[in-house]
């Protein structure tokens, strides 16, 4: 499933809404999560999962083409942990 299919499914279920508004709703959900993570905040959606930011330490990397050692700066990366309910459902337990 891709973003446009998700929008289409929800639009089909809500014929009283403009497709344009459904698009804005779906986009708002993902942009709110993005903005929160960009600020270093956590997003916790019970049953679904939690998005958070993890800090990766600086390390020495290697240019795979030349084999040359390069310094990789520490950086923040997005992380998702699946919620218990969804984890169970994926394994046919809920």
């Amino acid at each position, binding site marked *: *499933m*891709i*973003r446009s299919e*998700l929008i289409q*499914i*929800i639009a089909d*279920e*809500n014929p009283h*809404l403009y497709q344009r*508004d*459904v698009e*804005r*709703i*779906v986009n*708002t*959900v*993902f942009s*709110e*999560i*993005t903005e*929160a*993570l*960009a*600020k*270093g*905040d*956590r*997003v*916790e*959606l*019970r*049953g*679904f*999962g939690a998005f958070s*930011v993890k*800090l990766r330490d600086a390390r020495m990397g290697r240019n795979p083409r030349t084999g040359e050692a390069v310094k990789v700066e520490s*950086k*923040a*990366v*997005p*992380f*998702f942990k*699946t919620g218990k309910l*969804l*984890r169970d*459902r*994926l*394994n046919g337990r809920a």
Partner: protein
Amino acid sequence: MVDKTLTRMDLNEAVFREVGLSRNESADLVESVLNHISDAMVKGEQVKISSFGTFSLRDKSARVGRNPKTGDEAPIAPRRVLTFRPSHLLKERVATGNS
């Protein structure tokens, strides 16, 4: 780094402000977005949200685990796990926002 946690309530509020719907309906639609993603994954589908990221599934085989506290061996049954791979854009926003 500010230690704040957003919840469904914050997403509901954002949707409420963005679109001219009632608070109740906004909340139902946020729930619907999460439910449709979950349902697709439960059916074994990958969910790809452009410029956000991809939720995909991995089947893990059975292995012998260990209780880290007692050291006792414990069998771990084969299971399906979800992995989220953030898009380039999301990675970039998070890296620059938290540097």
